[in-house]
């Protein structure tokens, strides 16, 4: 065995037996360092004759090459072992809880209002608004409810003191969203298609009534609009809202001073697990008041009732929410109970869309 082969064998053995990076480095220095054995052999090549170099050169370079490769391989091996050792010491109990992020919620009333806006936008209805503190004219008189009308007594109106009256008009908390009909008809030209959701107030408080609640009003004023259009609109709306095709409506004649004819709308339901579920016609419950806008109302808004006619409807937003999502106590809507909000509230990203479905 030549010296070089012996050296190579020794060095490889040294590399193999190095069990730390430091020991490996010592081997490297002993071979490839300035004073190293392989470096010394490389240096001898300068003094060789060309012939000698021709034979010895490849051998010596081969030695250097093989030692370098062996060193690199061993270094990688030791480094991996070292990393594994370190990682083993860095073990953390991953069953420990991650930091909490609070979950925020959208109130069901807001969610349902967004759902309604989405559904009605598809039918061409914009969202209109009006003040909650209204004058008597907008809340009653313009809606064909004169002062002595028995319907006024049925409204349980909240009044403001006489000294707050404006132009002789007593100020009230609006008892329904219907004054938005008046504000819309007096401020924009027909054709009109609007919905008007918002807070309304009645001096009433028991298990199913709160002094403040939410209504949504709908109004269509155009030429040639009749009761059949009203029926279609309500059917289409309720089917879209409940996302069921088996929604059945029952229309009953009724009375509202601002519509003629007036129609109350019942929706069919079934009882499933003790809850009323909309759909089918096992029994009926009242959900909407509606009718063809009274010509006196159209006149009061400065429009010609022989040209323009249309329909209006109104319903409770809180009630729609309860029917769809199953809450059974209206009072809890206005209590701000965190547990209730977490239970019935909606995620921020539950934005109602027609493509994704309006319900969440």
């Amino acid at each position, binding site marked *: 065995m030549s010296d070089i082969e012996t050296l190579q064998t020794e060095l490889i053995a040294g590399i193999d037996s190095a069990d730390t990076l430091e020991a490996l480095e010592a081997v490297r220095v002993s071979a490839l360092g300035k004073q190293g054995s392989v470096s010394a052999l490389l240096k001898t090549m300068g003094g060789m004759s060309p012939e000698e170099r021709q034979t010895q050169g490849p051998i010596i370079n081969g030695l250097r090459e093989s030692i370098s490769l062996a060193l690199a391989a061993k270094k990688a091996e030791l480094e991996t072992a070292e990393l594994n050792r370190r990682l083993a010491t860095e073990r953390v109990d991953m069953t420990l*809880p991650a*930091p*909490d992020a*609070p979950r*925020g919620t*959208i*109130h069901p009333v*807001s969610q349902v209002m*967004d759902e309604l*806006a989405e559904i009605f*936008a598809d039918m*061409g209805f*914009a*969202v209109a608004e009006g*003040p*909650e*503190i*209204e*004058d008597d004219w907008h809340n009653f008189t313009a809606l064909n409810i004169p*002062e002595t009308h*028995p319907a006024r007594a049925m409204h349980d109106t*909240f*009044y403001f*003191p006489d000294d707050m009256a*404006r*132009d002789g008009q007593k*100020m009230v*908390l609006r008892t329904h969203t219907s004054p938005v009909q008046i504000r819309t008809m007096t401020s924009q030209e027909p054709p009109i*298609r609007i919905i008007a959701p918002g807070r309304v107030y009645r001096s009433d408080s028991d298990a199913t009534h709160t*002094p403040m609640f939410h209504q949504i009003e709908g109004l*269509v004023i155009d030429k040639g609009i*009749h*009761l*059949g*259009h*009203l*029926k*279609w*609109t309500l*059917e289409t709306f309720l089917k879209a809202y409940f996302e069921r095709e088996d929604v059945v409506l029952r*229309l*009953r004649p*009724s*009375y509202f001073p601002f519509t*003629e*004819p007036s129609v*109350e709308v019942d929706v069919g339901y079934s009882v499933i697990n003790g809850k009323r579920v909309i759909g089918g016609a096992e029994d009926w419950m009242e959900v909407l008041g509606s009718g*063809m806008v009274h*010509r006196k109302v159209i006149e009061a808004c400065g429009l010609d009732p022989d040209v323009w*006619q249309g329909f209006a409807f109104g319903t409770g937003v809180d009630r729609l929410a309860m029917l769809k999502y199953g809450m059974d106590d209206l009072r809890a809507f*206005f*209590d*701000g*109970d*965190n547990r209730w*909000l*977490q239970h019935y*509230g909606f995620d*921020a990203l539950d934005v109602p869309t*027609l493509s994704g479905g309006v319900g969440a």
Partner: protein
Amino acid sequence: MKFSLSWLKEHLDTDADMLAVADCLNRIGLEVEGIENPADTLSAFRIAKVLSAAPHPKADKLQVLSVDAGGPPLQVVCGAPNARAGMLGVFGPAGAVVPANGMVLKVAAIRGVESNGMMCSIAELELGDDHDGIIELPDDAPVGQVYADWAGLDDPVIDVSITPNRQDCMGVRGIARDLAAAGLGTLKPLGDVYKIDLSAPLEGGDPAPNVRTDDEAGCPAFYAQSVSGVRNGDSPEWMRAKLKAIGQKPISALVDITNFLSIDLGRPLHVYDRAKLNGALVARKAVDGEQVVALNGKTYTLDASMTVIADDAMVHDIGGIMGGEHSGVSEDTTDVLIECAFFDPEHISRTGQKLGLTSDARQRFERGVDPAFLDDGLAIATKLVLDLAGGTASAVTRMGQAPVAPRIFSYNTDYCNHLGGVDVAPEEQRNILERLGFSVTADWHITVPSWRRDVDGPADIVEEVVRIIGLDNVMSVPLPRADGVAKPTATPAQSLERKVRRAAAARGLNEAINWSFLPQKAADAFGGGAWSLANPISEDMKVMRPSLLPGLLSAAQRNMDRGASSVRLFEIGRRYFAAADGTSDERLTAGIVLAGDKSVRNWTTGKSVKFDAFDAKAEAIALLKAAGVATDGLLVMDDAGAHYHPGQSATLRMGPKNILAAFGTLHPATAKAFDLDGSIVAAEIFLDAIPLKKATGFMRLAFTPPALQAVTRDFAFLVSQDMPANDLVRAIKGCDKDNIVAARLFDRFAGQGVPEGQVSLAVEVTLQPTDKSYGDDDLKLISDKVIAAAAKLGAVLRG
């Protein structure tokens, strides 16, 4: 409005059963609110014969009966003094439920003797008030039969909700007329129902009573007739049964007659005891301050707007609303005066509202009774008095004139389709209208019947036709739809509100909806409310809120009381102010309250972290950003409001005047007023103050990333500890706009190495080269500008 099925059938000739009637009522707009059949609760109670009665061995007042209820004899212990062998009564077996108290009867030992049920009293079966003894039935009552069937109690009572426009249906006859028009049967002639000839006046020989009206506005017509020599005993069983069936208590023949006619014909009447009257009975305006004790025993003080019926001595009747106690009939009454008047609906409504007094009479007069029914109404009342209480009638006095002018208008039958959306043949329309009492000429001039005050135009005629034809026949017709997909409809303000709401929820806040009204004290503590209700439901719900925080704080407090450790609530709603012109100025606002733990105890530190004012600031800025506000440019100034901690609160303004938000730690006194402790922080974002973005199209500015890399340099300054850090940052940021693109405070330090009264503020400045990289000279120049700008504020670069 309640009536029994048998009562309805007095006027309506029909074979229809209860369900068919209820169905038809709903279909034509007379909403059925409930149906109750007294027989349903009494089905277990049977007619029984007492076979024997023996004294109870251990109790003097009890007897041991043997009872035959159709099966083998049963032993029953009974405490009624009238129980005796041979009598017939009503027996409730074990398992029956006693209507009066809901008790379930069982086989039980009473003082040691087994009893297999109960012999019942009238009161126990809720058939009357009599509880002195058990029911005694005639000897021919069939033993073993269900008592209710035999007694004719199987007669369902219908409760119908009458809308305010339908006075005519405030009487059973009007309902029968509507049902007949809808094809459910035939309306019997009124004369047949009362067995009276209404074509001839019912006038007696006695002189007509002395009545008149001096108030033709309030009481346009006053008809009266006297009957003398009456005996005011109990009314007959048929009348008592009808009144009892609908929950009215029979009183005496004369009183029951007026109550009965009010329900049967929707015609309120009043009967006076003539012995209590002095001189003429006059309809007149009350004198301010005049008083009357009404039949309900309460004293009412009247004013000059109210119509009363009075004699020379006193007021005897609040006209059309309630009679007076003094001249009410009693069992001693022998001579009566029957009043059949027409009171103006508006007057009745106003008087009723002022007095807070409601009655069956008011409900009918204020809806408007049939002005053409005074003669017939009076004749029927007099006939009933003569039939049931005897006596002789006087002539009739007719003073004034009820408003009977016919209402006639022309009608185009096409309107039914045009408005009602259903095509009904003209002849069919005519038939419907005539069945309802309208008269229709060949050229379609329609005369409205006197009892239909609600009908005054073609739209009402469409309603009549459509409701009788049935709304089921109205077919759905789609609204015309614009071409293409639906257009967006939200206004900029609505879009903003939706964004802010969802941004708040995305940040972990829970949306609450609180009352719009507050207690006075809470409103005052938040700047005072402009609108206070005259008739609040309670003092806690009186003033329209000037701030959203009181509602949120109360909600936070309720949550804390329920044991919540952390509350994150927000609300978006209006605050209520008064505009200069007296209208309501309602401003959309977002309110936020954070209370308790920002983060609960956790395993990394073992400690919880409380909310502080910067959490409120973070929410305010985040929501303003969501609303599209460039928050970097906002001024941070004081004056957040007295409900905040004065040293830990601020406002965010767009320019010095326009306050977009306020935030901070809640003032401890405010927190205490809401029973909250610990650190409570709050923010208010005044959404109405945010300028709405104008639509500028969808195209964004071109994306032009800088070609050269930005560099950062850190500066630390010593400043007075009173100086707002933001002033320094803004000064640095603004000192060289060509190069400085950002300045960010990253350290604030006081203590060792920093002189007393000062702090060290460290700012990271980002420099963006444009066409060539910075050289040392460039950086030195910029650095000098930064140091100079800081020096102007008294800041000294730390060495």
